C-alpha cells in the first residue's frame, strides 16, 4: 500500500513538473538571457486563433505591448504577459518591433513650442545642423495653422492640449535614435511611430462617407439628475441634442447615432415627493428617430421638491441605463451622466445599488460601455467637490485611456451646453470616421481656442476621447488629395526646444515592468548600503563591492574576470541589468569606477550617495503606487505591469 502511495505521489510530481515545463515562454532577444522579444500592436491589428486567420478571436487595443511567443512566416504568436498566457496570433505587418521599449512623453506645451514631426530624417537633420531658427519658426507657424503644401517637410504636430502620462497612459514608441548637437546643446533625433489625427473633414468627404455607409453605430444614453436644481441644464441638454441631431442629418448618419435618456432622483422612502428613483424616458431604439426622442424627453421636468442632501442616487440611474438598454446594436457605447450632486456609494444606506464606483465601472466595462460624467459644481456643495470629483473620476475611468470627467461651475449653463455639444459632435465624427474607414477625430482649431482653464480642460477631455488605445494621436497636417490617411505613420523629431535648446520638449522613457523596477531597486539598495559603509569605513568597500557584484550579477563567471582592473566600473563588474543595458543613457552609478570613488572626497561621496538614495526612494514610491501602473491586456497589477520610467532616473 505504502509503495502504491509513493508511486502515485511520484507520478503526480512528474505530471506537475511536465505541465510546468510545458508552459510556453516568450522568445528571448538575441544575445539576452532574460529579455523577451516585444512588439506593439497597430490600430488595425486583430488576434486570431491560428495563423490561418480563420477564427477571429478579438481586436487588440492599439499600441498594446505584446510578448512574442512564436514566429511562423508572416504571423507571430503573442501574449500580454511573459508568464505563458498567450492571447493568439497576429500578422507581423500589424505590429511594430519594440524590443528596447523606449517611448516619449511630451511636456506641457503651454510654455514651450509643440513638437513638429518630420517626414524624413534628412530634412530635420539639415535644419538641426544649420541651427536655422528662422526657418524652423516659419515651418512651425505654418504647421500650427495647417497651412501646408504637399512638399511640406512636417507631417504632424504634437496636440495642443497636454496629457499627463501619469494619469492617462500613452505610448509614442521610439524606433531609432541618434545623438546630435542643437546649437551648443546635445540633443537626440528620434524616429517615432504614431497614429494620425486629422482636421475636421470637408463637407464633400462627409457626403462621400455617408454614401458608403458601413452601419457602424454609436449609442449615447444620457442619465440626468432631475432634481429641483437641474431645470436649466435639462433644457440645455435638450437644446444640445437638437443641434447634434441636425448635424447628424446633415452628414447623412441618421441611423447611425442614437440617443437615449434616463432620469433619476433619490431615495423616495425618505422623500416621497420626489416621485421616482429612476425613470427611463427614451430607449436607444426609440432615440434613433429625432421626433420620438423629443416626444418623450419633452415630458421630463425637474422635481418640485429638493432631495435630502448633496448626494443623489446617480448609480441607480447609471445601472439602469447599462442593464436595461439593448447595447447589442451599437458598436460604440456611451453613458453620459449629468448631475450637480455626489453619488451614493456602496456604504450609503440610502443608496439602492450598494455598488462602489469601481464595481459600477466594471459593470459598464463588461458591456463595453464607457461612462462620462459632466459634473455641475454648485457653490453650496463646494466642500464635497473634491470627494465627488474623485468618485466620478474613478467611475469614468476607462482602461488605457483615462477618466472622462468634466467639471463645470453650476452657473455656467453655456459652458455646460458647449461641452455637451462638442462631445456629442465628436462621437458623431468618430462614427463618420469609422464609416469612412479613416481615423479622423477633429480638435478645435487653435485660432478658436482661448487658452483659458475651461477650454484647456475641454481640449484635454477631447484628446482622451480621440486617444486610440494606448496611442496618443498626433495632429496630422500633410494633405495629399485622394490618398487615405495611414493607420500608423513614422516620423522624426528632435527632443530639445529649437528656440531654447537647454529645455527638453519630451522625456525619453523606457517601459519597465514592475518586476524589473523591483530588481533594480533591490540591487541599487544593496549598492547604497555598501556605499554608506564605504563612506564611514573605506577600507573594505572595494572588496565588498566586488563580492556583492558576484551575487547580483546574472553571469558571475563573467564578473570574476572583469573586476580585476581598478578602472572597472559598476556596469563592468556585473551590476548592469539587461533591461537597461543598451539604452541611450549614461548613468553615473553604472559608470562609477572604483578608482574615482577612492579619489573622491567625503563630500563628493556623500553627494553621490544622496543622489543614489533619491533614485531608490523614487523606485520604491513608484513601485508602491499601483495606480500608476498599467497591466497590458487589463487585469490586476502584477509583475508584468508597466510604467514608463524616464531615462534620467536610471542609475
Amino acid at each position, binding site marked *: 500500500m505504502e509503495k502504491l502511495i509513493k508511486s502515485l505521489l511520484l507520478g503526480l510530481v512528474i505530471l506537475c513538473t511536465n505541465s510546468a515545463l510545458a508552459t510556453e515562454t516568450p522568445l528571448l532577444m538575441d544575445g539576452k538571457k532574460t529579455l523577451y522579444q516585444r512588439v506593439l500592436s497597430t490600430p488595425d491589428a486583430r488576434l486570431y486563433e491560428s495563423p490561418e486567420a480563420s477564427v477571429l478571436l478579438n481586436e487588440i487595443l492599439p499600441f498594446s505591448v505584446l510578448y512574442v511567443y512564436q514566429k511562423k512566416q508572416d504571423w507571430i504568436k503573442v501574449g500580454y504577459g511573459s508568464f505563458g498566457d498567450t492571447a493568439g496570433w497576429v500578422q507581423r505587418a500589424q505590429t511594430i518591433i519594440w524590443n528596447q521599449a523606449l517611448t516619449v512623453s511630451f511636456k506641457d506645451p503651454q510654455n514651450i513650442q509643440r513638437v513638429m514631426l518630420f517626414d524624413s530624417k534628412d530634412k530635420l537633420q539639415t535644419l538641426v545642423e544649420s541651427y536655422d531658427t528662422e526657418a524652423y519658426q516659419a515651418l512651425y507657424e505654418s504647421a500650427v495653422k495647417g497651412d501646408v503644401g504637399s512638399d511640406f517637410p512636417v507631417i504632424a504636430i504634437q496636440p495642443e492640449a497636454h496629457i499627463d502620462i501619469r494619469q492617462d497612459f500613452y505610448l509614442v514608441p521610439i524606433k531609432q535614435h541618434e545623438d546630435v548637437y542643437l546649437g551648443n546643446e546635445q540633443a537626440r533625433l528620434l524616429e517615432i511611430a504614431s497614429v494620425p489625427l486629422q482636421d475636421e473633414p470637408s463637407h464633400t468627404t462627409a457626403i462621400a462617407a455617408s454614401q458608403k455607409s458601413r452601419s457602424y453605430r454609436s449609442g449615447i444614453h444620457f442619465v440626468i439628475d432631475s432634481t429641483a436644481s437641474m431645470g436649466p441644464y435639462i433644457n440645455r441638454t435638450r437644446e444640445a441634442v437638437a443641434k447634434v441631431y441636425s448635424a447628424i442629418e446633415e452628414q447623412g448618419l441618421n441611423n447611425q447615432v442614437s440617443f437615449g435618456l434616463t432620469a433619476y432622483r433619490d431615495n423616495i422612502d425618505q422623500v416621497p415627493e420626489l416621485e421616482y428613483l429612476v425613470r427611463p424616458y427614451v430607449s436607444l431604439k426609440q432615440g434613433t428617430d429625432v421626433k420620438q426622442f423629443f416626444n418623450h424627453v419633452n415630458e421630463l421636468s425637474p422635481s418640485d421638491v429638493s432631495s435630502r442632501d448633496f448626494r443623489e442616487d446617480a448609480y441607480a440611474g447609471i445601472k439602469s441605463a447599462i442593464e436595461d438598454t439593448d447595447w447589442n446594436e451599437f458598436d460604440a457605447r456611451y453613458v453620459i451622466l449629468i448631475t450637480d450632486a455626489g453619488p451614493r456609494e456602496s456604504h450609503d444606506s440610502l443608496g439602492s445599488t450598494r455598488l462602489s464606483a469601481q464595481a459600477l465601472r466594471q459593470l459598464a466595462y463588461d458591456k463595453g460601455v464607457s461612462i462620462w460624467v459632466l459634473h455641475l459644481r454648485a457653490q453650496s456643495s463646494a466642500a464635497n467637490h473634491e470627494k465627488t470629483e474623485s468618485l466620478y473620476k474613478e467611475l469614468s475611468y476607462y482602461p488605457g485611456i483615462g477618466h472622462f470627467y468634466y467639471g463645470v461651475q453650476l452657473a455656467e449653463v453655456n459652458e455646460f451646453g458647449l461641452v455637451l455639444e462638442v462631445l456629442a459632435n465628436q462621437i458623431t465624427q468618430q462614427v463618420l470616421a469609422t464609416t469612412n474607414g479613416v481615423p479622423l477625430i477633429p480638435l478645435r482649431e487653435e485660432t478658436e481656442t482661448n487658452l483659458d482653464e475651461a477650454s484647456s480642460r475641454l481640449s484635454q477631455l477631447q484628446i482622451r476621447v480621440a486617444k486610440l488605445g494606448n496611442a496618443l494621436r498626433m495632429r496630422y497636417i500633410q494633405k495629399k488629395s485622394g490618398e487615405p490617411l495611414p493607420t500608423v505613420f513614422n516620423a522624426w523629431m528632435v527632443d530639445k526646444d529649437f528656440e531654447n535648446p537647454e529645455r527638453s520638449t519630451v522625456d525619453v522613457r523606457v517601459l519597465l515592468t514592475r518586476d524589473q523596477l523591483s530588481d533594480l531597486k533591490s540591487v541599487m539598495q544593496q549598492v547604497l548600503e555598501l556605499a554608506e559603509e564605504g563612506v*564611514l569605513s573605506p577600507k573594505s568597500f572595494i572588496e565588498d563591492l566586488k563580492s556583492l557584484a558576484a551575487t547580483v550579477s546574472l553571469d558571475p563567471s563573467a564578473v570574476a574576470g572583469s573586476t580585476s582592473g581598478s578602472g572597472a566600473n559598476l556596469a563592468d563588474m556585473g551590476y548592469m541589468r539587461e533591461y537597461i543595458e543598451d539604452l541611450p543613457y549614461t548613468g553615473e552609478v553604472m559608470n562609477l569606477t572604483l578608482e574615482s570613488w577612492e579619489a573622491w572626497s*567625503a*563630500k563628493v561621496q556623500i*553627494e553621490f550617495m544622496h543622489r543614489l538614495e*533619491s533614485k531608490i526612494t523614487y523606485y520604491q514610491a513608484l513601485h508602491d503606487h499601483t495606480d500608476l501602473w498599467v497591466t497590458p491586456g487589463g487585469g490586476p497589477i502584477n509583475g508584468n505591469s508597466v510604467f514608463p520610467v524616464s531615462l534620467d532616473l536610471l542609475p
Partner: protein
Amino acid sequence: MSTLSESILIAPQRNPLFWAGLVVAGLILFIFLGSNRNGLEGPVDKKVSEQEQAVVSLPNNESIDRNLPISPGMGARKIIESTRNTGKPYPLIEIFKHAKAYQKNGSLADSHLLYFFTAREGHLESIMQMALMSDPTQFSAGNSLLDQADAVQAYKWYQKAALVGYQPAIDSVQNLRQWALDEAELGNAYARQLLLNLK
C-alpha cells in the same frame, strides 16, 4: 509629465567646444581668484585650511588637535574605526559631541560623517541634526557640508525620529509636507518627488 526629480538629476549635455571655453575661463578665474569652498583638492582658502588641520581627537576630549594636516573626513573616520574596534555599546553621546566640535570648527565633512554614524545607530539628536542639515526650510550652507538642501534626506531622517514619537520631528514632517505642497505648485521637482514619497 515632467514628473518628480526627472529634471533634477541630469545636467544638460553641451557641445565639447562650449565646455572647453568654460574650462579656459575657469582657469583664468582660478589663477586670479583661486578659491575652493570645500577644500577638496588643490590650493586652499582659510576655512579649508582649518578643515585640513583638523585631526583625530582622543576619546572623551572635545578639543581638536590641529597638529597633523589630513584631508576632510579622515579624522571622523579614524574615530569611527577606533569606536568600532572597541566594540558596542558605542559612546554615541561622546561621538555626537565630537561632531558638534567639528561643526563649530568648520570641519563639516568630519562632523557630517560622525552625525551620520551616530544617526544610523539610532542617536536621536544626531538624527535630528542630519534632518536639519538637509531641511529646505531650515537650510544654512554655513552649517552643512551640502551645497543645497535635500528634501528627501530631510524627510527620511525626520520620519525616523517621528516613528519613535519625537514630537518636534512629527511637527517637522508636517512642515515639510506643507513646503512640498507649496513648492510643487510652483513646479519644484524636488518637492514633487517628496510628495510622491509622502502619498
